[in-house]
C-alpha cells in the first residue's frame, strides 16, 4: 500500500469530501491560495476557489459563529482553527451554541460543523501554541471528539466527521503531521467509537492517545526486551468512547496505564481509571496509573518543555512499577 504523511491524509480527506458534497466548505486563516499554515489545503485552490476555501480575517469568534449559523441552515462548514489554543476565542459559539442547539431545539436543528486544528507540545511553540485541550470538550454534551494518531485514521475519521450531522471536534497533534503511514487510494471511512488495538500483549494495557500512541508503541518494544508484553489500545475517539475494546484489554492483561498528553485533572486518565474501577475492578492486579503532562502552561525552552510532557522513559518506568505489584 502507498504511504503518505498525516498532513497529506488531512488534505485528501477534505478534498474528497468537498468533491462529494457541494455544501462542504472551509473557513480559515490562510487556507486559500496560500494552502494553509501546514499545507493542509495546498493544491486545492484551483479546484475549489474562493467560494469554498474562504480565507477569513483573524476573527475566530466571528467565523466560528458564522459557521454555526451556516451549519444550522443546511451547510457543512469545516472551521480550520489552526491551533486549538485559538478556539478559546470562539468557545462560546462551540459550547453554548453548536453543542446545545440540537438538544435545545428538540432535535429540529442539526449543526453539522467540523472544527479541526493542531494540538500538542514538542516544538518549543510556547504556551499559546502547544495545548491539548480536548478533555475540556469531552465534558460538553453534544460534541463528538476525535483524536487520530495515524495517517490512515485521520483520513478515515475526518471524512466521517464531515459527513456526521453533529458538531465534531478533530484534534491533530502537530508532532504527527510529518509521520508517514499506509493509506489506501480507495475510498474508506472509519466509524466513530471504535478503538483499535495497535499492538497485542498480555501483561499490561497501555491506553494511549494521539502522539502518545507512538511513544507507547516504542515503550512496548523496549519492555518486550525485558520480557514484559504490553498491549497498546488507541481509543481514536473520546466521544463516543469504545469502552468495550478498552475493557476487554484490561480484563485480559489485568493492568492498565493511561498515557495522554493532556492534563490530568478530570481528564482522559481519570475517565479510563474510573471505567476500569467500575467495570473491571476484580480483574485488576495492580493500581491504575495515569501519565499526563504536568499541569503547567507549556514552556518554550526545550529542556523545560521536555520536562512537562510524558516521556518514553516515564512510560517504561511506570509499567515496570505496575508489573512489580
Amino acid at each position: 500500500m502507498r504511504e503518505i504523511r498525516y498532513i497529506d491524509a488531512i488534505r485528501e480527506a477534505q478534498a474528497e469530501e468537498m468533491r462529494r458534497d457541494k455544501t462542504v466548505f472551509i473557513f480559515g486563516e490562510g487556507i486559500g491560495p496560500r494552502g494553509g499554515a501546514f499545507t493542509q489545503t495546498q493544491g486545492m485552490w484551483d479546484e475549489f476557489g474562493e467560494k469554498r476555501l474562504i480565507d477569513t480575517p483573524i476573527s475566530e469568534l466571528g467565523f466560528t459563529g458564522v459557521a454555526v449559523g451556516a451549519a444550522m441552515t443546511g451547510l457543512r462548514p469545516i472551521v480550520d482553527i489552526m491551533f486549538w489554543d485559538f478556539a478559546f476565542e470562539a468557545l462560546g459559539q462551540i459550547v453554548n451554541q453548536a453543542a446545545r442547539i440540537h438538544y435545545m431545539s428538540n432535535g429540529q436543528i442539526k449543526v453539522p460543523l467540523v472544527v479541526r486544528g493542531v494540538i500538542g507540545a514538542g516544538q518549543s511553540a510556547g504556551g499559546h501554541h502547544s495545548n491539548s485541550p480536548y478533555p475540556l470538550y469531552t465534558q460538553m454534551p453534544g460534541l463528538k471528539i476525535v483524536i487520530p494518531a495515524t495517517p490512515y485514521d485521520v483520513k478515515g475519521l475526518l471524512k466521517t466527521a464531515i459527513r456526521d450531522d453533529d458538531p465534531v471536534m478533530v484534534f491533530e497533534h502537530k508532532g504527527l503531521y510529518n509521520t508517514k503511514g499506509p493509506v489506501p487510494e480507495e475510498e474508506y471511512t472509519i466509524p466513530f467509537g471504535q478503538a483499535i488495538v495497535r499492538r497485542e500483549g498480555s501483561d499490561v494495557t497501555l491506553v494511549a492517545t494521539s502522539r502518545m500512541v507512538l511513544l507507547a508503541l516504542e515503550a512496548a518494544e523496549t519492555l518486550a526486551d525485558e520480557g514484559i508484553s504490553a498491549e497498546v489500545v488507541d481509543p481514536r475517539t473520546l466521544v463516543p468512547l469504545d469502552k468495550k475494546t478498552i475493557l476487554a484489554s484490561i480484563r485480559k492483561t489485568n493492568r492498565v496505564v493511561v498515557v495522554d498528553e493532556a492534563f490530568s485533572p478530570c481528564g482522559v486518565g481519570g475517565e479510563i481509571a474510573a471505567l476500569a474501577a467500575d467495570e473491571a475492578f476484580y480483574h485488576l492486579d495492580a493500581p491504575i496509573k495515569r501519565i499526563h503532562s504536568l499541569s503547567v502552561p507549556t514552556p518554550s525552552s526545550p529542556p523545560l518543555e521536555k520536562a512537562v510532557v510524558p516521556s518514553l522513559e516515564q512510560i517504561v518506568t511506570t509499567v515496570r512499577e505496575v508489573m512489580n505489584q
Partner: protein
Amino acid sequence: MDLPDKDVLLALYRQMLMLRRFEEAVARVYREGKIPGFVHLYIGEEAVATGVCAHLEKTDYVTSTHRGHGHALAKGVPARQVMAELWGRSTGCSGGRGGSMHLYAPEYGLLGTNGIVGPSIINGAGAAFSAKYRGTSQVTVAFFGDGANNTGSFHEGLNLASIWKLPVVFVCENNLYATEMSFLKATAGQSVAARAAAYAMPGVAVDGQDVLAVYQAAGEAIARARAGEGPTLIECRTYRFVGHHEGDPGTGYRTQEEVEEWRKRDPIPLFRDRLLTDKVVTQDELAQIGDDVEAHVQDAIDFSAQSAWPSPQEAATKVFASPL
C-alpha cells in the same frame, strides 16, 4: 412618507397588540406560578419586531435574544407553541427543552432566541452566509439589544457581514439599558447606528416607538439585502416599560419620571391615534381586532394548561442528531 395600504396598517396594529397582550398574559400566569424559570418581556418595544418582521417571508430567518417572545410571534410562530414552551410543555416549539430563552422554530425561520448576549448577531450572519452560498433569496434579520453592541460578536459579525456582503439586517433594540447598565455609560460614542460607518454599511437610527418609521427603515434594508447589496444596521430607540425580567421592579437604575415620559410614547396608542385621526379605521374595527387578539391569547393559555409535560424518559435523548 405615504401610508401603507389599509390591510398592512391593520396587520401592524393587530401584531403589536398581539405582542402586548401575549406578554401581559405571560406576566399574569408567571405570577400564578405557571411558568418556570426566567422571562424577559417585550412590553414597550412591540413596534420593532412588528415593523421589521412585516417584511419577512416564512423562509427568511430571524435570530433573536433573551427578550425574544415578540420576535417569535412576529415571525409567525403560533402563539400556542410559544406559550406552551414557556410553560415547559411537550407541545412547546422546543418540546419544553428550551424555555423562554431557547425558542426554536426553523419551520417558521426562527433560528432561536438566545440565553447569551451577542451570538444572535454572528449566527444571524451565518444564516445569511448560508443563503448566499446556496444561492437563495432568503434574508436574515439578527435582533439584539444595546447590551450586545459592545460585545465581540457585534464587531466581528458586522465586519464579516460587510466584507462578505451578506444578506442580513442587524436590528438593535436600544432600550437604553442592559439590565441596570445605562447605554450612555456603556457605549463609546453613544450611538449604535454611528458604528455602521466603521463597517462600511448604512447605519440608520429610527424612532422605535413609531411602527411606521420602523416599517419603512426595515423595508429599505431588507430590500437592499434581498437585492444582494449587503447588510444594514438599524438602531431602534425604544424602551422597556417593565423590569428587565419578571420579578425585577425596573427601578433603582432609572427614574420614575423617565419611565413615565417613555410610557407617553407607547407605540400602540400612538399608532391607534394616528389611524383614527387619519380616519383609516373606525373604533369598531379596532375593537374587533382587540377581541380577536384577546381570544387568541386565551387560546394559547388554555392550550398550554392542557398540554402534557415532556416525559422524563426522554431527558437524555436528542443530544445528538446521529446518536453515539
